[in-house]
């Protein structure tokens, strides 16, 4: 019975993540359009796009790794989702979130992009490979402040578990974004890179790289990537909410918090042009790193 709850809960989580992620994507498009003084597509535009992509034929492949790539990505997103506490007390989504910790999560999150990169590599399109190298390079950039922020939290609360961090926030009554502000700043700056909006959209850069890694993938491949990307966005946002904003007791609060934090990279991105790769890396090794170090010092002092 418990197993059934687990499975059903897992499916519910995936659906929730998919829906929320996709809607957020649509909303972002809408917001972007409004900022550009346009009307923009409806908020459900992403669902239509996804459905259309799923309906397209997928007539070709360049080898089995291209097929596996999106599958890897999806697996990674869903498995990562399984280890994220969606709601504070588990609630409707009793996943595996009490059995993992942050470091594990960090590495699990890499699994998908690497698989995806392999898939992109097999297509033989140079743009794909270039996009992948950019993405990996950028990842090295933002991982440093991000990990610094996480380590600062770990030190501060003597736990590496996400649930542990949430409990610690619940006990102290303040969110981590207030109790360890530097870590929050570093993490938020790292988040700019993590979401790959402008100015850090160097991976897909449509005008330079013809959308980069996905340039050979249409139809169902693209659908898989799109939906796993949405799930992934949800995962990241929930993770931020969990570790910096005390988690969420119910769905409404979860949506509020995630949306508000999501606006940071989105709004920053709308008004930004694109960086070159090395500029992006150096950006992350500038102020974000500084705040990361501050966070570490702060955490080790207090």
């Amino acid at each position, binding site marked *: 019975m418990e197993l059934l709850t687990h499975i059903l809960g897992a499916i519910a989580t995936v659906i929730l993540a998919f829906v929320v992620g996709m809607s957020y994507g649509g909303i972002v498009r809408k917001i972007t359009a409004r900022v550009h003084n346009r009307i923009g597509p409806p908020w459900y535009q992403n669902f239509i796009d996804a459905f259309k992509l799923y309906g397209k034929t997928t007539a070709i492949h360049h080898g089995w790794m291209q097929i596996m790539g999106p599958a890897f990505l999806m697996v990674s997103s869903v498995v990562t989702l399984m280890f994220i506490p969606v709601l504070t007390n588990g609630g409707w989504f009793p996943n595996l979130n009490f059995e993992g910790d942050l*470091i594990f999560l960090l590495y699990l999150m890499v699994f998908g992009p690497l698989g995806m990169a392999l898939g992109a590599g097999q297509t033989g399109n140079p743009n794909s490979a270039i996009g992948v190298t950019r993405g990996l390079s950028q990842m090295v950039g933002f991982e440093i402040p991000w*990990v610094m922020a996480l380590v600062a939290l770990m030190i501060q609360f003597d736990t590496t578990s996400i649930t542990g961090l949430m409990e610690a926030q619940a006990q102290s009554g303040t969110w981590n974004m207030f109790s360890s502000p530097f870590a929050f700043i570093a993490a938020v700056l790292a988040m700019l890179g993590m979401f790959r909006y402008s100015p850090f959209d160097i991976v897909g850069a449509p005008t330079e790289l013809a959308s980069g890694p996905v340039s050979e993938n249409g139809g169902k491949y693209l659908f898989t990537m799109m939906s796993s990307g949405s799930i992934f966005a949800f995962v990241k946002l929930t993770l931020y909410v969990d570790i910096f904003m005390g988690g969420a007791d119910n769905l409404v609060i979860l949506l509020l918090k995630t949306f508000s934090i999501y606006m940071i990279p989105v709004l920053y991105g709308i008004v930004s042009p694109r960086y070159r790769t090395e500029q992006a890396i150096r950006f992350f*090794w500038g102020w974000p790193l500084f705040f990361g170090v501050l966070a*570490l010092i702060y955490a080790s002092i207090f």
Partner: protein
Amino acid sequence: MEMIYLIFIIFLGGAVATYLLGKINGVLRDITFLATLIVPAVLFYTQVSIGQTVDFSMSGMNLQWGITDFGYIFAYIVLGLGVLAGIYAVAAMKGKENLGFFYSNYILSIMAMMGILFSRDLVSFFIFWEIMTWSSYLMVVFSGKDVQKVGIKYFIFSAVGAYAMLMAIVTTYSLTGSMMIDSLVTAYPGFDFSMQLLIPILLLIGFGVKSAMMPLHVWASGSYSHAPMAYTAVFSGALSKMGIYGMIIVIVSLVSQIPEGHWFREVIAWLGGITAVGGTLWAVAQDDAKKLLAYSSVAQLGYIIVGVGVGTPLAMLAALFMAVMHGLFKGTLFMAVGAIEKQTGTTNFTEVTGLIRKMPLTFLASLMSIIALAGIPPLGGFIGKWMLYESLVGSDHYMLVIVVFFSSTAAFLYCYKFLFGFFLGQEEPEWAHVKEAPAMMVVPMIIMAIGSFILGVFPGLILNPIDAGLQELGYASTQGRYWEMSMLFNEWGDKVVLQPILYTIIAVFVFFFVFVVAKNFKKTRYVSTKDISSSGEIPKAHENLTFSRGFFQPFLRAVEPLMKHQIDPLYTGFGRGMEAIFDFVRRIYTGNGQTYALYAIIFAVLLLIFKNQLFGL
């Protein structure tokens, strides 16, 4: 006869027999070679028990051989990798010249490594250490490429390390009057402070060279890449671990006994961290797979050194676990490179591409090993890294954890480069003829890849012996505190359960593969990699669109300041300078008899002048 002697006699006899049979019959030689590896391995695991020792005396010194719990961990690596790489070597080296020499050297290295693990005294330790050094040196120069540069560099560094160690050994002997490692450990706290510092430093120079610790690592990239890949698997996988083995003994048994040891360990840990970062960055910059893996080995050994330097029980578990894992996955990767080299004749990423459909099994093995190397769950590499991070955070090494994490993240870059460079990208007609490597090469790779998978899911299999080994060194048992058979905990009570991860991954994967991808698989057809969207152009057969040159150029530009300062030119400059000085010294011998006679007279006069100082009269 004592089983321990028997093992070494088989090794030695086998080495000689293999060499001699190599002159007569190839098949017989191969069989002898494999038998010489497998029989002692079987004897070792069945007949030799931990704690069993033999004593003998040589040149007036009492020596002792016997395996400890701690050595047993490394014996797993040495013999396991030795046998598997040996099987691989038979197929990989087929058709090469001078195979008897290669095989007997191979056996000698394995023997020397086992000897190191067996040695309970410093003299036999040193003897086996040197045998290991020169046998591996002969392997490095086996290919005949850059012999004077790479080979000599390796040997000079090894010699410097070994001689530093020898100095420590004789100093120990003069201080304790015994060559036993145990007596050194017992007597160490009683030494005066300078000796307490000198002996570990000298020993660590020796071990640091073998384990490629910065700044003693400069030999590694050349040597790893110049030795035949069949041997490099052992070289990087097992031989470098001997440095770790010694380092752990020194740090845990000696340095920890003194109050200043704390700082010592910090230095070692930081050296390890710097090694990891430097190795990784240089690996990213390489265009040759051998070089890439060589630098990657340096980096991985850096992690292990970090663990050793930190030295909490969890860190030691991590270090040793990573040592085992590194043997597995780096062995596999070097083997894969060897297979590719054999099938294509090159190991350069800019030349060979798109082998995935030609060598799928090699790709599979490489993929699993790379996942393990990158530390991505659910393969074994993750366990080691996870434990290392936990231990670093837990022991307040905040900056070090960032350094290690940076290195580990940057490792994804070269991981991808390796897979992409060889297996992905355009399939060129140039490589259309390439076939999968022979079964004897593929099977060991697959076995080892599966091994790293199994250890990823059931780390307890190897953590158990590691725990026993650590107790041998004086650590309290960690049983149940950090790990179970398939579960890991940290000191703060969190845990990672490995099997659910595996199940989840498999379940989701199967779901997507079956219902999303495989359902449509029939409808899709394979098109060649020339059929890509490249602005409407149709790439010609000879047009290679693979992106392989300057692969991580932007990244390298970004990290340029970190890579600008190399230690290698310093050594080269030092070497050059020394040679120049020597050349100057050489001119003392003018070749002129009159000068020599003059020297003699000057010498006599000088002696007369300084007779009071010299002879005290």
